[in-house]
């Protein structure tokens, strides 16, 4: 083999966190470009010790699922303010299941009418966060509910 060595000397100092960091993909699906919320959440989760993979704007359900798969994420956070959540979120959940990624937890943020929340939860969304949700609330939820990363 052409690779014979670890490239970086293993350091003696202890890790800041004893548990491996939680990886979360944050993405906006659909056409709306309002990214204030998702950017604030991205920074907030970073400062709470998460590894945040920012997939950005204009993602399709297909591209989001690909990102989750390749990044081996524990969570997927979808931001949507355009009202298309009942079209797009079920599609994401379906594709996740199809890809064997049902262990990935999904949270949704944005403008979601009260009446749609139970429908989303029933479809498999772990939690819906409205506009202006305090970051600590999201952190607490994710910490308490991080799905066990499974090898299978």
């Amino acid at each position, binding site marked *: 083999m052409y690779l014979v060595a670890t490239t970086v000397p293993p350091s003696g100092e202890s890790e800041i966190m004893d548990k491996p960091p939680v990886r979360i993909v944050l993405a906006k699906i659909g056409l709306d470009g309002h990214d204030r919320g998702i950017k604030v959440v991205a920074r907030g989760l970073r400062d709470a010790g998460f590894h945040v993979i920012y997939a950005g704007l204009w993602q399709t359900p297909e591209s989001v699922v690909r990102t989750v798969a390749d990044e081996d994420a524990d969570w997927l956070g979808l931001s949507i303010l*355009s009202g298309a959540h009942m*079209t797009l979120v079920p599609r994401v959940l379906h594709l996740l299941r199809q890809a064997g990624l049902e262990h990935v937890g999904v949270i949704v943020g944005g*403008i979601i009418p009260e009446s749609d929340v139970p429908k989303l939860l029933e479809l498999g969304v772990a939690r819906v966060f409205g506009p202006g949700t*305090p970051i600590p609330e999201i952190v607490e939820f994710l910490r308490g509910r991080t799905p066990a990363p499974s090898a299978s």
Partner: protein
Amino acid sequence: MSTATERSAKERWEQEVAQAMSRPQPPTTVSGVPIEPLYTPESLPGFDYDAELGYPGQYPFTRGVHATMYRGRLWTMRQFAGFGTPRQTNQRFKFLLEKGQTGLSTAFDLPTLMGLDSDDPRAVGEVGRLGVAVSTLDDIRQLYDGIDLEQVSVSMTINAPAIVIMAFYLANAQDRGWDWKKLRGTIQNDILKEFHAQNEFVFPPEPHVRLVIDVIEFCTRHVPQWNPVSISGYHIREAGSTAVQELAFTLADGFHYVEQTMARGLAVDDFAGRLSFFFNAHNDIFEEVAKYRAARQLWAETMRHTYGARKEASWKLRFHCQTAGCSLQDKQPEVNLIRVAYQALAGVLGGCQSLHTNSMDETLALPTEHAVTLALRTQQVLAYETGVTNTVDPLGGSYFVEALTRQMADEARRYFDRLQQQGGVIAGIENGFFRREIAEAAYAYQRDVDAGRKIIVGVNAFTEAEEKPIDILVIDDTVEKDRIAALRAIKAARSNEEVRRHLDAIRRTAEAGENLMPVLIEAARARVTVGEAINAMADVFGRYDGAAKW
């Protein structure tokens, strides 16, 4: 000039303040600017009434752009509306006019805003949802059907495909026999703030700005009463900026448009008078008022001295104002009515020319008719019952407001310098400057709220255990099918040969760097769609993925 007794009064006051209890958080504006406990003449060293304020309707317009302000004419009460099919929105327009609204404001759906037709696969789930879906000239025709376009001023909130929609509007007006010279209204057509904040753009910044200038140039020559651009800080603020950032970035955008239009060979006085602005009205009344006053002052100063404008009309910053959507909460939504009322007050105390008041239910869905009516009534109470319209610039001369206005203008000038050092607005877009500044401000604000340093009623204080749901508007899912069917029918009936010819003409004109308006107006009549026109331009301009800058 201070005498011994004055000094001692001041000293006594200072002593009292030092001993008094104060609230745990040092008072700051919504944007985090620290505020002194008291403002006095000492807060305004070297204050010069004539140079800094002057008389309303006169340079530098700090006190307002009209001599009489609301004693002469009230602001235009203009509620943004649009959803579903053009016919549905047309009905909402007529409803609003009947309720006493004095101007129309059109909201388009996301696919249209992104230059996509209703039948585009990327539009799935979004057709007619946040605004009206418009793909062809026929849609524009239905949208304004039965409305006297020479009498009612019409505003259209659209940017990336603004030139295409404007072409549809003008083709429709002409076909209906309206005189272009009598049309009044505004098209937002401000692409720069899309790059900073709202992310509705298609092409790279430079060709996109060129299209903005095409509209300005064409309207200057042919539609003289139309406002061809509404230079917008609103969305910058909604994206989380501070008040100063909103002010500075908006004016910097405006200066860029002025420079680019002058570079076309237009004289500044031929077009500057039709440039209009659009600002946010957030919760902090005095900060907002100072922002509007500083904006007028800075614009007048720069138009006169930097760009050499000689007409008074070119110096005047006229603006539309909308209450801050980002301040609305989904908790205890009726409380939003109160927020909106105070924000509207700020807009009026700041001398706005037109005003949109948000509806209380907008964090939940599109507003219901009940909510829209209450929002409009808020403006009417403000106009007819509160007395704030009785005199011009009622806050002028307040030590506090004048000091804050000065401070705001100074900080904006510092931003202008920083932008200049980077090579201007386009460079600031390319290197992510605007997006970073705004995102950091948004995060700082959220941390203040999360830590309880800023109180939001019903959210981090005074919460209710049981939230009472309110009625919301539900858009039925048949709209998408309806729009796709209508579009198919139009495509089947038109001559595809002719469409191809028009698309070629669009490409050629884009390539040649000539004004695209005339070919787009002709293309509209051949039923070229919004998406087709945008794609043809993208063939020449390319597409931009700059939202990655953050």
